[in-house]
């Protein structure tokens, strides 16, 4: 619940003024609705009595009827304003929520974030964010508006009718409605999480079945997959049905609460009239207002039923990132004895993340500015893990990595990122223009610099043909071929102008000629940088100053 409260504060704070104004208008709408019905009831009962008494001519009809019309128009106008304001505020809140989420995720280690890229992890995040969208519109605002409305209605009824009616209405709605809604929230807490899990499971299995149907048919496991999916569907249906039972039950209970309050106030008002403590017309106000106030209660049902889902979503979205690695000392000075030695590995041993068995053993090497090193070796030998370790993403088992003469751990995170740029095998582009993608590497990038980087990776003509630097790319860079996307990622890395550039399979998806040109272009663009490539392709191996075959460093088992 703490996280839900956090989420609410976060959303409300995105634009508190708009939220409060929206809440105020929501109260106004509810009050005007109650006033409209109350005034009409009073007006008709009073005119009826005046008519019976034969004093109709003396009755002031002008002001009440103007009031009725005014309330009718005012209510519609207030409603329009309320909708606009609350939606505006919610949209701001949504943007704020998403920015916060990005901020939090940015504090997770890169290796962990790579796992979030799967489709199901991403849909889960969107489902969670969508669930939190309802926290303000369906939960906080209606609850706040209902409470305020009842407060005002209480004093209004007290002044106009009698304290007994005012107390009955307030107590009935707060206690009756409160108990029902509280029970709904409690009852759905566990079930909504179960339903959510079941529907996620169903979706995961559906994707699994359709994606793997060839495999399943070949292996003769289709019936098993199907049975698993059917079981997941059954589970989802059962839990959804349970939620619906709770929800419709709550609807019935709320309708009973409203009916009983109205009937009770009706009987009470009749008794007060019979005791001549209250005039019939004023007593009518009590009955009509009691009926009209049902509008404060009924919209709360949906928000309350979703409270479990919102809570779970808040817990996932606002989960604390793992504790950071111990704070590193301030940026070390460039040590003079290092000279132009950019990278040095000393007796390095590496294991795959989470494994004790060594992948590489006792690897030592040194790389100067302007030099290129090619790592070769069959797939699975640990080329990518080694690059991750040099970039500071994975720990080493033994030995030392020195960047410009300083141990890797001595570099602060952002200082390290300015020196070292890693282009992993799977690099992503973002939606936006070509220029926006490149500018991620270098804010304030000029067209001229961008074109120079594109020239280096043989992409200038492609971009030109697409309509220039400001031509848009789709989600994840959609619209470019695999090879083109690869080259754009390289160009982006070049613009960081790192001292050490780490490239994992940089020319994957390019033909041999293009691969040679791109490698030459990269070398030319970053004349002073040390470059490490991990690849088995000729283009990288042929132009390297050093080639290291990782096979030689496989530990004896």
């Amino acid at each position, binding site marked *: 619940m703490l996280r839900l409260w956090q989420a609410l504060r976060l959303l409300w704070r995105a634009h508190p003024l708009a939220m409060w104004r929206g809440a105020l208008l929501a109260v106004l709408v509810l009050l005007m609705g109650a006033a*409209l019905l109350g005034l009409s009831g009073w*007006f*008709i009962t009073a*005119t009826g009595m*005046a008519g*019976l008494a034969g004093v109709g001519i003396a009755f002031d009809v002008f002001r009440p009827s103007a009031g009725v*019309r005014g309330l*009718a*128009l005012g209510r519609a*106008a207030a*409603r329009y304003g309320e*909708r*606009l304001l609350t939606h505006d505020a919610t*949209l701001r809140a949504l*943007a704020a929520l*998403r920015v916060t989420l*990005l*901020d939090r995720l*940015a504090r997770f280690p*890169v290796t962990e*974030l*790579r796992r979030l890229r799967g489709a199901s*992890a991403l849909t889960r*995040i969107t489902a969670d964010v*969508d669930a939190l969208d309802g926290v303000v519109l369906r939960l906080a605002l209606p609850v706040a508006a209902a409470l305020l409305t009842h407060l005002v209605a209480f004093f209004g009824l007290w002044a106009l009718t009698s304290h007994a009616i005012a107390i009955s209405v307030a107590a009935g709605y707060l206690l009756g409605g409160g108990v029902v809604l509280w029970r709904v929230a409690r009852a759905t807490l566990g079930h909504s999480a179960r339903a959510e899990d079941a529907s996620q499971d169903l*979706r995961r299995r*559906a*994707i699994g079945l359709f*994606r793997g149907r*060839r495999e399943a*048919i070949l292996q*003769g*496991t*289709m*019936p098993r997959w199907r049975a698993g999916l059917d079981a997941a569907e059954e589970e989802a*249906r059962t839990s959804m049905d349970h939620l*619906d*039972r709770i929800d*419709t039950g709550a609807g*019935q209970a709320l*309708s*009973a609460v409203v*009916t009983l309050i*109205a*009937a009770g106030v009706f*009987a009470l008002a*009749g*008794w007060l009239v019979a005791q001549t403590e209250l005039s*019939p017309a004023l007593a009518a106000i009590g009955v009509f207002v009691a009926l009209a106030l049902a509008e404060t209660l009924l919209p709360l049902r949906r928000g309350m039923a979703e409270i479990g889902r919102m809570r779970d979503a808040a817990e996932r979205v606002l989960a604390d990132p793992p504790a950071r690695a111990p704070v590193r000392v301030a940026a070390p000075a460039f040590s003079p004895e290092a000279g132009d030695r950019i990278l040095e590995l000393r007796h390095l041993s590496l294991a*795959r993340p*989470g494994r004790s068995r060594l992948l590489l053993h006792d690897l030592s090497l040194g790389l100067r500015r302007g030099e290129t090193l090619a790592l070769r070796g*069959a797939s699975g030998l640990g080329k990518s893990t080694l690059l991750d370790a040099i970039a500071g993403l994975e720990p080493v088992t033994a030995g030392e990595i020195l960047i410009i003469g300083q141990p890797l751990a001595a570099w602060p995170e952002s200082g390290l*990122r*300015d020196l070292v*740029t890693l282009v992993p095998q799977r690099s*992503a*582009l*973002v939606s936006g223009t070509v220029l926006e993608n490149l500018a*991620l590497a270098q804010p304030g990038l000029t067209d001229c610099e961008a074109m120079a980087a594109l020239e280096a990776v043989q992409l200038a003509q492609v971009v030109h043909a697409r309509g220039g630097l400001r031509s848009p790319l789709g989600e994840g860079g959609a619209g470019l071929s695999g090879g083109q996307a690869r080259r754009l990622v390289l160009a982006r890395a070049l613009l960081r102008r790192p001292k050490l550039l780490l490239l994992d399979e940089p020319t994957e998806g390019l033909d041999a000629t293009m691969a040679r040109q791109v490698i030459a272009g990269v070398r030319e663009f970053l004349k002073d940088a040390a470059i490490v490539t991990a690849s*088995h392709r000729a283009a990288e191996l042929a132009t390297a100053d050093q080639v290291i075959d990782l096979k030689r460093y496989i530990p004896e088992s």
Partner: protein
Amino acid sequence: MPSVGAPQRSRAERLLAPAAQRRLRHAARLSALAAALWLPQAAALAWGIAGWAEAAPLARTLWMALIFALLGMLRGWGERHAARLAYRAADETLHVRRQALLDHGALRFGGTSSAALAALLTEKLATLGPWITRYRPAMARARLLPLLYMLAILPISWAAALVLLVAGPLIPVFMALVGMAAQEASRKQMVEVGAMNTLLIDRIAALPDLLLLNAAEASRAEFATRAEALRERTMAVLRVAFLSSTVLELFSALGVAMVAVYVGFSLLGEITLGTWGLFGPGLTLFQGLFLLLLAPDFFQPLRDLAAAWHDKAAAEAVAEEVAAAEVSLGAPVLGQGRRVPPLMGPASILLQGVALERGGRRLVLPDVAVAPGGSLALRGPSGSGKSTLLEVIAGLLAPETGEVLVAGQRLESDTADAWRARIAYVPQQVHVPEVTLREFLSGEPEGAVPREALRRARAERIVAALPEGLETVLGESGAGVSGGEARRLLLVRALIRGADVILADEPTADLDAATGAALVEVLAALASEGRTVVVASHDPALCAAMGRVIDLQADSC
């Protein structure tokens, strides 16, 4: 707005299961009847309050309060029952549709992508729910209730009936005018809110790269700017969209106000027009109160219907997608994908005069004969039908003409599963399901994986490199293996399960020379120990290792 006449059976309508249809009719009727209980409830209230003005005994109020309460309870019960019936109808329809889509889609390839199918099966089909549970009952109420109210109001006052009659149908007219723009606008709004999520997913997917580029901060600022622009556009759209619902509210509020004012003047005797004169010159207080209580509810069904209006459009869109998916899914595979005892007989393969439709053109495949224990390479440019031929041999594609004989029997639905029990199929893109490596290889969660098999397929190192060895969970959310590794693992599986027919589609594509050579060696070894091997490849080394080569022409029409 609705055409009140009997509508044509729409696509969505045809998706309703027969039992669901019956239930839904029930639900609609019950929901309308429950809502109609407001008529006697309003009469009881009005009769009680009118008694106050005539100084009737308290017992009249108390009796009326009791009737009001009992009817209200009954109404709540009816509403809940109707809601449950509608929910069950929706649940049943979704279940039947899901199962149908699974029956139809699980044993076919081509056409709709697996991700699109999974989305259709889960969230898209689910949009039929609100259409069934909200729109349909709302439609039933909108058809019945205004008519019923008119029948109640008209005998009391034709003037009041006229006011409501004018205001009521004017709502659809105005909705049609404002609504056309609003419909478009709200559709756009859905798109824009969706765009915010798309943007978020895009950024999360790119987050590891953004962190490596030190660009998380810049990207966050850029995201915030774009979210803000999105909000402004959305608000412009909403300003129009909310107008339509405001018009609706305005008319219903004005309708209520006009009825109230008219009743008041009539009760005072200032207006004598508008009644039939059956109960004296004007209205009685009971009649006036009754009219006032009915007026707001006269508009309620129309408002409910308007609120549920887009549910219908959404359901129709989904129904269309379901229909499209059923058409575009292509031909079914042979067999059911069950695990059955292997087909008896020596593993021979014979294709004669096989031709089939593939990607919109007719593909004539060469006649192929492979003796038991023989090996064959299919060579030819891409598009010449190499993969198709392998799929025909595996019974994944059914030929239109010609004959396929495997192990001496016709390959058809009855024999396909048994034939596949002998096949190991190595596709170009291996789908790795989310199971442990042990289960992937042995087929059982606790199955044995002999070291010998790993050694022979040169796959020991792959297993050793995985974080938890054989217990590592593979697939999207688990640890990855590269394409080449996955192909070798499939060969391990072939060895473990004793498959004696091996079909491999471009097994050495995109592999480095050493890994490729190792694979060729394994395949040659498998062939030499008496297994029937068919590969599709243009790798000269692999072709040379096979007993025979068939060249496929690019243009085999």
